[in-house]
C-alpha cells in the first residue's frame, strides 16, 4: 500500500478500493518503524488518524453516491518541515530559540493542503533555521538517510551503527518521510537547494517552483528574496499534483505574483523531440564524482538519441554564484534573526538585569554556532565600511547570474540539464569532518544559482551509484515555465524507470 504514488492512492480512494483510515494507519506504523532515522521532531499521529477516519467516512459517502463532492487529498498523510507554521502544532525550526513556540496560525501552503483533505502526520527535522546542507545541525540531532541503512531488527538489541549516509539538507526530514513511504508527499523549503539537495540524496523528486508562485506566508524566513516552499514527492506527477493544489496568489504574501495561473495535468504521452536541451559547461565543477558525471552524460545522450537538440551552453558566472549566495544569505539572516529576543515568543533567558542583557543571553542560549556565525558575518558585510564592497557587490553579481539564465533561455534553450549535487550522499563521519560553512559552500554549488535567478527547477532520481545510493539530476526552466520543467522531468522519469526505495520488508520483521 505504501508503494503507491499519490496519484495512484487518490484513484484508489476515489473508486473505493482503498480506505483512507487504513492508509493513514499504515503510514503511521511505517513512521514508527523507521523512527531511528530521526526525521520527525513533532509527531501528530493520533490527530492525523482521527482526521483520516473522518475522511474515510466522506470517501465512502462519495463512493456510494450519497455525495458527489470529493476532496483531492482526503485523509492522505503528508509531512511538513518544522519551519512552516502550523496552528496548535509546535514549530521549532530545530532551534532552542523556538523550542516552545506554538503558532497561532497555519502557513498558506499547508492550509491549502489541509483544505484539500491532506493530514499532517508530523513536523520534520532540519538544520537549525534551514542553515545547512546535511540536516546534521539540529537540536534534535542529525537525520539519517534510509538508503543503505541497517535498520534495527525488532525484538533485538540494536547493533551499534558506526556510520550512515546523511539525508542532505536542510529539509532532510521531509525527504526521508517521502523516501521511506511514511508520507505521500512533503513540504520543505528551498533557499539555496534545501529541497533539491536532500531529494537527490534520498532518491525522491524535489521541486522548487518559480519564485512568486507559492506563498511564503507562514514559512519562517531565512532569506526572503530567495525562499520558496519546496515540494517532495514520489513521482513527478505527484509533485505536479501538489504544486497545482497549493500554487497561486496569496493576499498575505505580496511577493506572490497576481497573474492567474491555469492549473494543469501533465500528459502521459510526452515528446521531447522539438526541445532544445542546454548543458551548461560550468556545471562540470571540481569534485564531481564519476558516477554523477556518468549519470549526467547518459541523460544528455538520451535526449540526443530521441532527437532533441542537445548543446553545450555557458552560464559564465556559475563559479561565483555560491560566494554571492553566501554573502546575501548572511546579510538577510542578520536582519531576519533580529526578531528573536525572547520577549514576544520563543525561549527567554533568565537574565533580567536589562533589556539588552536579556536579549544577548536569550540569543546566546537560543542559537547554535552556525546561526550565530551567519548573523555575525552578515552584520560584517553590512557594516558601512563593507557595504559597497561586499553586500552591493554581491547584489551586482546576482544580477549577472540572473542575466546568464535569461540569455541562455532567450537564445533558444528550453530546459537546462545539470547534476543536482556533486556526489551521492556522503557519510555522516565524512560530512562532519569540517564545519557547516565549508560544507554549505561545497554542497549547494548546483542548486543556489537557481534561487538567485528565481527560475523553476526539479531534481529527479536518475540511477543508483555503484554503492547503491541514488543520484539526482536537475532540470531548470525559464521563469514561470513550471509546467514545462515538470513535463520534461516526467518524460525523463518515464525513461529511467528508477526503482524507489522499498521498505516493505520492515513491516514483516
Amino acid at each position: 500500500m505504501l508503494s503507491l504514488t499519490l496519484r495512484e492512492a487518490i484513484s484508489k480512494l476515489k473508486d473505493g478500493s482503498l480506505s483512507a483510515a487504513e492508509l493513514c494507519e499504515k503510514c503511521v506504523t511505517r513512521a514508527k518503524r523507521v523512527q531511528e532515522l530521526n526525521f520527525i521532531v513533532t509527531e501528530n499521529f493520533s490527530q492525523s488518524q482521527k482526521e483520516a477516519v473522518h475522511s474515510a467516512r466522506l470517501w465512502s459517502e462519495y463512493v456510494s453516491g450519497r455525495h458527489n463532492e470529493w476532496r483531492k487529498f482526503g485523509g492522505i498523510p503528508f509531512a511538513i518541515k518544522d519551519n512552516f507554521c502550523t496552528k496548535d502544532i509546535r514549530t521549532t525550526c530545530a532551534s532552542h530559540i523556538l523550542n516552545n513556540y506554538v503558532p497561532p496560525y497555519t502557513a498558506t501552503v499547508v492550509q491549502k493542503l489541509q483544505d484539500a483533505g491532506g493530514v499532517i502526520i508530523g513536523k520534520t527535522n532540519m538544520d537549525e533555521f534551514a542553515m545547512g546542507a546535511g540536516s546534521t545541525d539540529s537540536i534534535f540531532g542529525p537525520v539519517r538517510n534510509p538508503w543503505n541503512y541497517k535498520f534495527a531488527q525488532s525484538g533485538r538489541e540494536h547493533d551499534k551503527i558506526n556510520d550512515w549516509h546523511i539525508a542532505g539538507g536542510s529539509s532532510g526530514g521531509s525527504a526521508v518521510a517521502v523516501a521511506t513511504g511514511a508520507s505521500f508527499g512533503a513540504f520543505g523549503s528551498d533557499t539555496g537547494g534545501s529541497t533539491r539537495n536532500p531529494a537527490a540524496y534520498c532518491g525522491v523528486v524535489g521541486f522548487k517552483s518559480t519564485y512568486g508562485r507559492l506563498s511564503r506566508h507562514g514559512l519562517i524566513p531565512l532569506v526572503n528574496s530567495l525562499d520558496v516552499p519546496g515540494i517532495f514527492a514520489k513521482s513527478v506527477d505527484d509533485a505536479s499534483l501538489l504544486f497545482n493544489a497549493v500554487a497561486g496568489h496569496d493576499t498575505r504574501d505580496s511577493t506572490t505574483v497576481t497573474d492567474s495561473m491555469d492549473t494543469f495535468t501533465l500528459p502521459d504521452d510526452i515528446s521531447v523531440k522539438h526541445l532544445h536541451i542546454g548543458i551548461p559547461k560550468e556545471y562540470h565543477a571540481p569534485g564531481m564524482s564519476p558516477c554523477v558525471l556518468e549519470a549526467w552524460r547518459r541523460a544528455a545522450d538520451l535526449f540526443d538519441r530521441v532527437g532533441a537538440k542537445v548543446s553545450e551552453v555557458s552560464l559564465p558566472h556559475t563559479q561565483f554564484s555560491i560566494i554571492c549566495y553566501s554573502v546575501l544569505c548572511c546579510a538577510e539572516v542578520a536582519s531576519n534573526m533580529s526578531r528573536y529576543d525572547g520577549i514576544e515568543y520563543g525561549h527567554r533567558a533568565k537574565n533580567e538585569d536589562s533589556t539588552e542583557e536579556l536579549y544577548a543571553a536569550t540569543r546566546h542560549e537560543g542559537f547554535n554556532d552556525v546561526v550565530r556565525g551567519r548573523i555575525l558575518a552578515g552584520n560584517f558585510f553590512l557594516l558601512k565600511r563593507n557595504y559597497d564592497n561586499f553586500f552591493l557587490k554581491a547584489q551586482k553579481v546576482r544580477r549577472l547570474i540572473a542575466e546568464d539564465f535569461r540569455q541562455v533561455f532567450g537564445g533558444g534553450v528550453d530546459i537546462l540539464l545539470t547534476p543536482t549535487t556533486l556526489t551521492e550522499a556522503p557519510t555522516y563521519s565524512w560530512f562532519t569532518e569540517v564545519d557547516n560553512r565549508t560544507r554549505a559552500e561545497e554542497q549547494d554549488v548546483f542548486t543556489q544559482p537557481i534561487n538567485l535567478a528565481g527560475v523553476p527547477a526539479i531534481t529527479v532520481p536518475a540511477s543508483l551509484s555503484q554503492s547503491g545510493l541514488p543520484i539526482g539530476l536537475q532540470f531548470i526552466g525559464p521563469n514561470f515555465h513550471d509546467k514545462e520543467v515538470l513535463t520534461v522531468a516526467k518524460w525523463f522519469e518515464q525513461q529511467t524507470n528508477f526503482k524507489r526505495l522499498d521498505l516493505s520488508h520492515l513491516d514483516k520483521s
Partner: protein
Amino acid sequence: MLQRRLTYSVKFYIKRCFSSKVPEKPTWVTIDRSKLPKEPKVDREVVDLLERLSLVEFNNQEGVDRLTKAVHSANLLHAVNTDNVEPMDSVLEDRILYLRDDVVTDGNCLKDVMRNATKTLEDYYVAPPGNIPLKQKERDYGNKT
C-alpha cells in the same frame, strides 16, 4: 569472443564520450588572489562592534576564525567585473507587487498571539529595564591589534 566484446565495449564507450555534450573536464578557472583587493581584517575592534550590533557572541577563537574564512571566501567576488551593473534586490523587480487595502481584516486574537510569551502582565509583554548598555566582558578571543 571475450576480446571482441571488450573491443566493442571500449569502442562504445569512446564513441559515447565523444558524442556527449557534457564537458570532459571541470571548467572552473583558478583565481589569482594576488590581483584581488586586500581583505578587511577581523580585529578586536571589529569583533567588539559586531557582538554589540548582533547581540550574539563569537564564543571562541573558532568563531573569529569562521568569520575570517567567510571574508576570505567573499573576497573572491572582486574577481568579477561588475562595472555598470545595477544591484539586484529581487527577481520580481520589474513587477508591481500586490498591496492590499489598508483595512482591518482580522483581529480578536490577543490571547492566541500572547500565549507564546513567557512573561506577560495584564495583556502587556514584560521586558526588564531598557537603555542600559551591555556590560563589557573580558574575552580571550579576537586578534590583537
